[in-house]
């Protein structure tokens, strides 16, 4: 009965005309940035963050969340038609999606991706509504030590699941924490590491940092490689509705992808990306014809596409119930909510039910909108893919410039963005992933406050983190994850997930 009441409440909020309109705008923008390679959901969301200042928290999160799952949806289009993933979670869709398109089956590939995404997206919203309230209730028992340990565990998982070197990922998390310490100390009011720059008094801005690391750096990398453009298949896209056989073949993959994607999406560091890779691996493993994967097997599209959309919903669970963002996009959403005075965490559902149920309701409707936006309008998205990069990159730069400026109405934010653009470019050159840095930058101030509160409670003893049972479990799991690769290496086995191999 309670679930039904929640469902009705969520629809009531989402069906308000302004919320409905913002949900549609979010889905449309999300599909747009998902389709266009070069402007990912992270940069787009941070770009639009200042525009949400005029909205209330419910409206803001509905718009931003729409961009997120819209991008997950739209990302498949470029993977299938151009063999370039619109966003990271669609990388694996290239393997079979593009091959299907080459064989003249672009229509069914796009169709099954949209149908799988719709089913998985709806499944994840239902799961989010069922799982989040009890998790949130449990998390109300957490005190500052538990939050420190949980943040530590979250950061550890993010670094463990990073696709490159784990040491580099850990370094990124540490650097993110250090950057998070810049600014005025919240406890004593002391200025720290600002180098006398007024723009740093409130800390390193999240919006210019993300736009620099994800937007500007991407443009710089593309520019130095010479404005190349993927080859778009010139065939007419027909038969978007898959045949009965296609649906029969894909049903299992969609179901497995939905379940797997949701639970992997909940894990910090997992998000939509991990689910799509794992789903592909599972489908290939259980298939009677594993050799057909990579040759245009429809299950290689249906599974990962379902998993990445389900994972997108799952990623909301730790953010909305524990206040732990499990990927960069969730970190931006967290930053956005905090700007609006709403702190994500266990108190979110009891204190701001309209925010939680508003998101849930908008996701129900958003999934239907996305089906309409993606399938009948496929022609428009394909035309968009033909836009020359020499015309696209000035627009990306311009949007980033305006986004950075409107963040704090100061040109200094443009310079902060530029610096992080150069930093992001160098990260790519030196093999560093910026995602753990952004997560740590968001979590840093929260973690520091909880850490100092914990030590005040314990009278300065760090033992508080291991004498409280829940905290001790988090610390133990984090240490196991940190030490596992070392132990497995000593035993002569690799200790990381094969993300790169699968890609």
């Amino acid at each position, binding site marked *: 009965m309670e679930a039904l009441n929640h469902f009705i409440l969520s629809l009531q909020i989402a069906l308000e005309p302004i919320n409905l309109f913002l949900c549609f705008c979010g889905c449309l923008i999300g599909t747009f940035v998902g389709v266009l390679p070069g402007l990912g959901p992270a940069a787009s969301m941070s770009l639009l963050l200042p525009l949400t200042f005029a909205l209330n928290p419910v409206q803001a999160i509905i718009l931003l969340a729409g961009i997120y799952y819209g991008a997950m949806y739209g990302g498949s289009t470029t993977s299938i038609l151009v063999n370039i993933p619109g966003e990271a979670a669609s990388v694996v869709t290239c393997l079979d999606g593009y091959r299907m398109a080459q064989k003249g089956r672009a229509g069914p590939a796009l169709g099954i991706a949209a149908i799988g995404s719709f089913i998985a997206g709806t499944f994840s919203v239902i799961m989010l509504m069922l799982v989040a309230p009890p998790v949130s209730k449990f998390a109300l028992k957490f005190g500052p030590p538990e939050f420190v340990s949980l943040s530590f565990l979250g950061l550890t998982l993010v670094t463990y699941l990073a696709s490159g070197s784990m040491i580099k990922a850990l370094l990124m998390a540490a650097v993110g924490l250090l950057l998070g310490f810049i600014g005025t100390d919240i406890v004593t009011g002391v200025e720290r590491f600002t180098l006398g720059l007024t723009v740093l008094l409130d800390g390193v801005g999240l919006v210019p940092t993300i736009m620099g690391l994800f937007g500007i750096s991407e443009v710089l990398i593309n520019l130095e*490689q*010479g*404005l190349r453009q993927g080859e778009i298949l010139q065939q007419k896209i027909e038969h978007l509705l898959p045949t009965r056989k296609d649906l029969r073949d894909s049903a299992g993959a969609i179901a497995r992808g939905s379940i797997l994607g949701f639970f992997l999406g909940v894990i910090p560091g997992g998000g939509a990306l991990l689910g799509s890779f794992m789903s592909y691996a599972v489908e290939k493993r259980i298939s009677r014809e594993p050799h057909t994967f990579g040759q245009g097997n429809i299950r290689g599209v249906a599974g990962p596409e379902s998993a990445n959309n389900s994972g997108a919903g799952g990623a909301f669970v730790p953010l909305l119930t524990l206040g732990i963002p499990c990927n960069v996009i969730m970190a931006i959403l967290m930053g956005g909510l905090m700007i609006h005075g709403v702190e994500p965490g266990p108190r979110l559902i009891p204190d701001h039910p309209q925010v939680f149920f508003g998101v849930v309701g908008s996701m129900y409707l958003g999934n239907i909108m996305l089906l309409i936006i993606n399938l009948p309008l496929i022609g428009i998205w394909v035309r968009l893919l033909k836009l020359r990069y*020499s*015309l696209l990159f000035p627009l990306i730069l311009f949007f980033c410039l305006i986004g950075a400026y409107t963040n704090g109405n100061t040109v200094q934010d*443009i310079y902060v963005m530029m610096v992080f653009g*150069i930093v992001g470019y160098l990260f790519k*050159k*030196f093999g560093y992933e910026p995602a753990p840095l952004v997560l740590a930058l968001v979590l840093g101030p929260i973690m520091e406050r909880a850490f100092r509160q914990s030590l005040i409670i314990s009278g300065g003893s760090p033992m508080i983190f291991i004498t409280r049972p829940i905290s001790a479990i988090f610390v133990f799991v984090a240490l196991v994850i940190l030490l596992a690769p070392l132990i497995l290496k000593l035993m002569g086995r690799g200790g990381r997930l094969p993300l790169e191999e699968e890609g």
Partner: protein
Amino acid sequence: MKHRDLISALFWMIFGGAFAIGGLMQGLVRQGIPGPGSMPFIVGLITVGLAGILLVQALWTKAGPREKFFPQPESLRKLSLALLGIFAYGLLLKTLGFTLTTFVFLVFVLRFIGYEKWSTVWLFSLGTALLSYLLFTSLQVELPKGFVGI
């Protein structure tokens, strides 16, 4: 990657070390409670430690063939021009105002980085500047007007 790992490891050592020293100077403990420098000190030391591991790993790794830093002869020129454009945008925004700065910026990047034809450059820049002006005005976003007043 060996050389790049060595360079980055040394950089992170200095970076982490600076925060650790800064933290020490801010104070680790104040009136019996953790001071403003406590966390930066701890995380700074962790950064130095991790950078140390990376340094050792890099030293032990066999050096592969050295990659070119810039893949094309034109790369550096394009990157410098893009960064110059961004910097100039920040510099001119208050004086020239949003619309004019946007127009000048787009003309610059489209022509000198994108090598677009002049007709495309003028049309695209003017269209984007005017459309964005109308969009942001309708959204009541406060943007600098400059001496021209738009």
